[in-house]
């Protein structure tokens, strides 16, 4: 275990000098790497080359206050069981990034997913703008933080209106049961 830890420290130093990344430990077998957007593709290619070849998922986090989208690539190495969360921040107002579908064919669908739910475009993935999960969607991409699903649901899908239960409310007023009178 110690040799492995030493190796990984060396490996991290190399990553830092080569790709100028920021590293943090999540637990003993999971690490987060934050890289600049222009370094991501060579970094991913390098990691894939040395064994981190399984792309678990490509996803996105909306940091609305910092006006950034964080793209997260989760890579897994089948031979030593180490997981890397490779992440990068891109501009939220102009969300365009490069595709990785040449490295991982399945990424084509992850990218379509991210485009559908966050509106991030992937250059080189000609299918990424086609709708996949949602049909005839005409609002903001739904996983963005400024999208309110309750409001959308109220506007589009009428709710059942329940009749007022006067006796129930009277019991609440009297203090027999706890509850909301207007609810």
């Amino acid at each position: 275990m110690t040799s492995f830890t030493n190796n990984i420290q060396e490996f991290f130093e190399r990553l830092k000098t080569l790709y100028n990344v920021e590293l943090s430990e999540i637990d003993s077998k999971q690490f987060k790497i934050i890289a600049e957007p222009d370094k991501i593709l060579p970094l991913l290619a390098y990691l894939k080359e040395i064994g981190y070849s399984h792309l678990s998922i490509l996803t996105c986090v909306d940091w609305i206050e910092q006006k950034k989208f964080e793209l997260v690539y989760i890579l897994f190495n089948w031979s030593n069981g180490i997981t890397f969360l490779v992440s990068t921040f891109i501009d939220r107002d102009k969300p365009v990034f490069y595709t990785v579908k040449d490295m991982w064919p399945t990424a084509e669908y992850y990218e379509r997913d991210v485009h559908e739910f966050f509106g991030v475009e992937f250059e080189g993935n000609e299918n990424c703008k086609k709708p996949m999960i949602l049909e005839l969607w005409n609002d903001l991409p739904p996983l963005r933080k400024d999208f309110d699903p309750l409001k959308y649901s109220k506007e589009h899908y009428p709710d059942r209106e329940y009749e007022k239960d006067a006796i129930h409310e009277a019991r609440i007023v009297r203090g027999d049961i706890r509850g909301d009178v207007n609810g």
Partner: protein
Amino acid sequence: MSKIDERSVWEKIADQLRSRSMWMLHYCTGCGAVELPPSMTSRFDMERLGMGPMATPRQADIFLITGYLSAKTLRRVIYTYEKMADPKYVIGFGSCTINGGIYYDSYSTINRLDYYIPVDLYIAGCMPRPEAILNAFNQLMEMIRKGEANGWKRYKENYEWYKQNQLRSLGEVIVHDEFHE
């Protein structure tokens, strides 16, 4: 007694017979479908009630909406419902069909099924157990015998209202293919 409840003698006899042989459309619209195989197979054995799964909507009598419906599925459900031959009965399965249930604030699922197609019977719960499903089928048979399960007549009578609701929530009720040509 309104016009919708009136039945001729022949219809009464037909309803008696209909209730003994019900075919359920094999369409797993939501997560409740996971309780259907247990109720179909040896332990709960739905077939002793004279019921069985049926592949095509044109030969099915019961449409079981098993749980939440996303807008995308609702388009297919309306298609399928309109394809089914009269008389047809709809059972709403689980809390999600009644009032949205746990997905009340979801942008993708509808909150109330009977706004789009008529529902004869609801099964409450998430998820309803096979016993509840069998109980509901028994109840539905009873309703058919009494002539109370007339959702299909209501759909015909209030077609404009249903259509307007469908269009309001879905935009269009047309099914496109996935080739994007």
